[in-house]
């Protein structure tokens, strides 16, 4: 049974990722928690999520535990006689104060994460992201202080996913794979290529309705709104292909406009950028235009 085998492998991969604390890219079957992410900032939401979850679990155990004890001990069927008290000032002060203290700690952690997220200064590269119904456009604006001209492209759902996702296509979503990884609805014809180890500033807007640009491994999403330019940043630490989706309802094909970010080393990126710029530059008049070879 191949599907069974794949499923077991996927569960094993998830378990390994959970145990080893390795950053995993892209959703895994049976994944239970938020990804740790691959950027300098993406650990902030991950840790905050874990701390908040831990706090909630502890409070939950205490409160639901007290309820469970009450439901066992104070049953009429066990002869419990109702007491008359309706008030306990000490207790009420305690259970108002302690939550406030817990909230102060959570607020402190969250404020730190928020302040670092809001600081887009010192970026070495700018990419403009524009949402359209139902595709993304990426324009490279600036890299290490130099303006980039005419490097931009549309990025839309890959043909195989698009064929498979049609109503009544009869095609199996499990068969949509790239390098053994299922990429159904999470693959595009042309991904956004960015370098690792560079603080990238994303400026995000939209051309028609509101969209939201979300790659879980980058640790955030931000809305793409017509008439407004939002800014966010990411410094990706490890090369890889990171997949996400539009996260704001934007019409009938909202579920079919994935985001794919391909993070490569700096030299690979610079090479790629140079090729793209060469392709975009007007051909010299004297020589015959040589078609640029692209990988």
């Amino acid at each position: 049974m191949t599907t069974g085998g794949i499923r077991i492998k996927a569960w094993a991969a998830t378990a390994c990722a959970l145990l080893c604390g390795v950053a995993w890219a892209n959703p895994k079957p049976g994944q239970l928690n938020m990804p740790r992410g691959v950027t300098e900032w993406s650990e902030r939401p991950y840790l905050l999520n874990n701390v908040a979850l831990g706090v909630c679990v502890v409070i939950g155990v205490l409160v639901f535990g007290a309820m469970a004890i009450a439901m066992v001990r104070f049953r009429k069927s066990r002869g419990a006689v109702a007491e008359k008290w309706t008030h306990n000032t000490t207790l009420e002060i305690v259970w108002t104060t302690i939550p406030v203290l817990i909230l102060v700690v959570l607020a402190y952690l969250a404020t730190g994460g928020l302040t670092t997220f809001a600081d887009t200064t010192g970026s070495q590269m700018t990419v403009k992201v524009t949402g359209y119904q139902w595709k993304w456009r990426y324009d490279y604006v600036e890299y290490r202080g130099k303006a980039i001209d005419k490097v931009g492209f549309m990025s839309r759902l890959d043909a195989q996913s698009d064929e498979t996702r049609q109503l009544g296509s009869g095609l199996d979503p499990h068969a949509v794979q790239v390098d053994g990884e299922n990429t159904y609805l999470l693959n595009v014809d042309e991904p956004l290529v960015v370098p690792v180890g560079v603080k990238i500033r994303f400026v995000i807007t939209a051309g028609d309705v509101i969209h939201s640009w979300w790659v879980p491994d980058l640790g955030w999403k931000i809305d793409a709104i017509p008439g407004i330019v939002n800014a966010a940043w990411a410094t990706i630490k490890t090369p890889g292909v990171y997949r996400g989706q539009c996260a704001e309802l934007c019409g009938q094909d909202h579920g079919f406009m994935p985001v794919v970010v391909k993070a490569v080393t700096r030299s690979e990126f610079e090479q790629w950028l140079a090729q793209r710029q060469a392709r975009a530059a007007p051909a010299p008049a004297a020589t015959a235009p040589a078609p640029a070879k692209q990988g």
Partner: protein
Amino acid sequence: MAHAATHDQHDDHHHGAPKGFFARWVMSTNHKDIGTLYLVLSLIAFFIGGSFAMVIRAELFKPGLQLVQPYFFNEMTTLHALVMIFGAVMPAFVGLGNWMIPLMIGAPDMALPRMNNLSFWLLPFAFVLLLSTLFLPGGGPAGGWTLYPPLSLQGQSLAYSVFAIHLMGISSIMGAINIIATILNLRAPGMDLLKMPVFVWTWLITAFLLIAVMPVLAGAVTMLLTDKYFGTSFFNAAGGGDPVLYQHIFWFFGHPEVYIMILPAFGLISEIIPTFARKPIFGYKAMVFAVASIAFLSFIVWAHHMFAVGLPLGADIFFMYATMLIAVPTGVKVFNWVSTMWGGSMSFETPMLWAVAFVILFTIGGFSGLMLALVPADFQYHDSYFVVAHFHYVLVTGAIFAIIAGVYYWLPKWTGRMYSEFWGKVHFWNSVVWVNVLFFPQHFLGLAGMPRRIPDYNVAFANFNMVSSIGGFLFGASQLIFLGVIVHCVFFSRKQALDRVWEGARGLEWTVPSPAPHHTFEVPPLIHDEDLAHGHAVD
């Protein structure tokens, strides 16, 4: 005595309900009949909205599109929300309020009976209008229940939705005025404000929220209408407007709105738990004060629905702190319910089971709410299935569980007969198991990166979606048991209910016969503090 004086004047009211069906139900000004109408409408809407949810869960049963086109899927998510919020939950609370508030405060009827009739009868027309769009060219609203522009402006049914929302809003405002007027003017002598049942208190506060925010929603959707049909540019960036402005206005309505759907639920639970614990509620005044604080805070937290729109840092911080503060009064309420149970003499009839499940599952929804308040984490949670799980925990296992608890609690008072305790418990255990199978895995889906409002998904999300769908179908099917229990109780049950249906029940509603006669408290009752649920509240 006042008894003799009022007796003559009210002589012509002493006859029972009108005989003719039309005269009794369509022309009714009786708070009990109008309450019944609201509750029946709510039950119908619950099943219509539920059937939309079944379509959603069926399409999400496995990856790939098998049943419906994406646009129709979006119509289903949009109408599921609108029907459940405006058709099921809100009318259910208005119905419970109509039936019970006069009985609980010793009033003969609502203060404005004719307006009561009008506020009910607007609703069926509003819903026919809204749902008729499904059968019109261009289809129904498909931009989400929040109707965010510019997307909602692309829909062909916008004018229908806006008019339906206006009708519902007028109905809600009139209902709220009626409730405030009734509570402030028609309390029997001796029913001091701080002796009122908590349910009455929560409805009083909710009614003020309704009056404050329904006009804001009306303004927002009217601006959508003029943007689409009259060339204005309130939300059109190309004309100098701002799409985010709509979201601010909408959520200034929307956040109080979600508390409109939970505060009366708090009230219901605060009546039911003391009854079955046979012990007065712990911290009555703290409960009332907590509800008032939550209502106040609801006006200053709206932008926590908009953390991903790119708010300024200061705004993010303000709305995060304000939102986190809500955990304090909400925590007080949960602690007080547990303390009411502690030291009681509990029995677990069906209403109590639902109330206990409410406290646990609503608290779980509160926990995810606290997590969502933390902005950096919300950048991940926002618009994912984690949010879907969160608000279904607070709205289904919160508001709807409380409504069901209230229905079981008062059904014998309404009909004069006992419902089947066995089938009530079958309904409860099925619901409480399957609702968790339905919604708990959605937390995992959201954390793993599945956005909400999508008709199809990557195979990585397949396992939990299938589990969730199975839970959804069985939870939906379990509600048919509820229908059966109600029909049985109203038409077939032979077991007579006592006037004081539950051993530990306190309050004026249990001093009238079961079933409650068509007219009650035509003469204000003499109030003994020990009869009241909260007559001796000192703290």
